[in-house]
């Protein structure tokens, strides 16, 4: 249906390594993303979960070096051995779209209203692979058909406002994948869509990842979105990665009070057995977070040691790590967690 293997820019065995990534806004004292480290193996799906303002999106945008004005990334990001933060602007630009692509949350604004969708997709192909207008147009139509646009040859001449939200997100995905990237950063790709369409888009992303042999970074605030799709999960809170591990282990045996709180606040977790449990308090102002554990002010298990010094990351089982001093007491938090595995979509 769609040829996967012939593009020259694809390096199938590239691993994304993010090491001690920080993002700091000019004039602000404390970075809003601090010490985030993770890896995404070739073909792997890595989920990044956290609430709004936890730094998930900034992490994504830092990888592509598309941070908002005034924000600066530190640390080290490598993909396939190339240090992304050290590349020149031109080198980075050549990588965007062709090697690493990104899809955004809101399909209503992610497409240019004055470009016909077929042209928009064809442009990506033409600019990265130097193929002619006719060839890139044909591939654009193939790509549209692949993401589930019916009657693609005719619809290629339509403008974005003539499509529904779900269809626009499909077209947005087609644009992102048009130049056959090997790593896709999906920043809340389904948040603006209704539940049925959400499930379809997620399935589509997963199918495409498999077909193209891509790695996928899936960012979401919703455990249910990442649960069924991801091989490994990272949980972000207040600009830090508080827990990371294989998706199954994190979901069934969470090792951080915040992860537990997040799961307990899912309707499925309590499933008719009383009230949802909200996490008390509100997310930290990233600039005035405490010196120790960022979650401590809202944590039922917090002791004075939690706020005094930075909390080290501990490995609780192979490949599963948590930034918490009170792991041995987590049992006190568990009761509502029983239904969590039903969340796998």
């Amino acid at each position, binding site marked *: 249906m769609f040829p996967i293997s012939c593009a020259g820019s694809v390096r199938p065995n590239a691993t994304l390594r993010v090491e001690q990534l920080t993002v700091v806004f000019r004039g602000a004292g404390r970075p809003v993303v601090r010490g985030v480290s993770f890896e995404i193996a070739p073909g792997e799906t890595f989920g990044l979960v956290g609430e709004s303002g936890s730094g998930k999106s900034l992490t994504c945008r830092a990888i*592509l070096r*598309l941070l908002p*004005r005034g924000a600066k990334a530190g640390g080290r990001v490598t993909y396939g051995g190339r240090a992304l933060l050290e590349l020149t602007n031109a080198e980075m*630009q*050549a*990588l*965007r*779209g*062709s090697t690493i*692509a*990104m899809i*955004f949350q*809101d399909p*209503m*604004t*992610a*497409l*240019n*209203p*004055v*470009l016909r969708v077929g042209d928009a997709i064809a*442009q*990506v192909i033409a*600019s*990265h692979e130097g193929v002619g207008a006719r060839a890139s147009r044909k591939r654009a139509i193939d790509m549209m058909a692949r993401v*589930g*646009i*019916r009657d693609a040859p005719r619809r290629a*001449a*339509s*403008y974005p*406002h*003539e*499509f*529904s939200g*779900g*269809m626009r997100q499909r077209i*947005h995905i087609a*644009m*992102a994948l048009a*130049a056959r990237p090997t790593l896709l950063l999906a920043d809340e790709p389904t948040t603006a869509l209704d539940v*049925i*369409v959400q499930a*379809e888009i997620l*399935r589509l992303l997963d199918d495409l990842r498999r077909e193209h042999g891509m790695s996928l970074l899936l960012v979401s605030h919703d455990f249910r979105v990442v649960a069924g799709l991801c091989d490994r999960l990272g949980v972000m809170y207040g600009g830090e990665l508080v827990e990371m591990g294989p998706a199954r282990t994190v979901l069934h045996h969470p090792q951080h009070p915040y992860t537990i709180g997040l799961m307990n606040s899912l309707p499925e977790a309590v499933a008719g057995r009383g009230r949802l449990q909200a996490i008390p308090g509100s997310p930290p102002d990233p600039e005035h977070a405490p010196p120790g554990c960022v979650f401590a002010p809202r944590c039922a298990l917090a002791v004075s040691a939690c706020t005094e010094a930075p909390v080290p990351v501990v490995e609780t089982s192979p490949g599963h790590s948590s930034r918490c001093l009170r792991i041995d007491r987590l049992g006190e938090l568990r009761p509502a967690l029983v239904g969590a595995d039903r969340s796998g979509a």
Partner: protein
Amino acid sequence: MSTAAAVVPARPVRRGWLAPAGPSLWVGMIGILTIAVLAALAPLIAPYDPTALALGKGLTPPSAAHWFGTDQLGRDILTRVLYAARIDLQIGTIGVLIPLVMGAVIGLFAGYYAGWPDALLGRVIDVVTAFPFLVLVLAIVAMLGPGLRNFYIAISLVSWVAYARIVRGEALSVRGRGYILAARSLGFGDLRIMFRHLLPNVIVPALVFGMSDFVLDILAGASLGFFGLGVQPPTPEWGVMIAEGRNFIITAPWVVIFPGVAIIVTSFFVSLIGDNVSDLVRRVRAA
């Protein structure tokens, strides 16, 4: 699984870009086109020579021989109004196009990059707009010397600022939209994003402004002609004709009425187009 495709109703085939516009757009376009054709064909259809003097026949009222009458030097006013259309349409067109292109490019850079280019442009805009438009044009033409070419230079130097301000404002608001970020995430270069992605989304208000600016330029040309700094007599130009005829406005009103009507009719057609274009934009934005 493609239930979404089934749920979304088939939408009507895309209609032409101008289809939703009202008939007044066509009235405006046909009107302007007619004027342009008449102007182009002036040497063929005008009954007299626009500069031939007939001193004995000065200020004759409209008649079968002279439909619009004659001016104080006996020149046929219909002929002069037709010939003047050539100059005036040219003044309107050039007076809009050059500043539009200059302003759009400058405004686009300032709006896209923000930061210091934007701050610099802001200062320049402040300085230029501190002077009344006509005074500044007059001053520049007075410095360069009279004539149409210098008039164009002066207009370009002054009115690009208006276009730059409009385009910059639009660009500043649009550059933050998702599709600009998305374009960057796909590896498009700044110039490509600016001219292919940003420009089509920000240019329309400037085009709409250009429609009213067209009329303003004709009036500015007329004012300069009035001071003897613009089009030089005996070349016919609507503004100059009015200026020359103002002394006879009571005794021979046709000398000023017909070029005046020509200005009004032209402006009317141009603003019909402008109104429709801005209407269209509003509808497309709402969709």
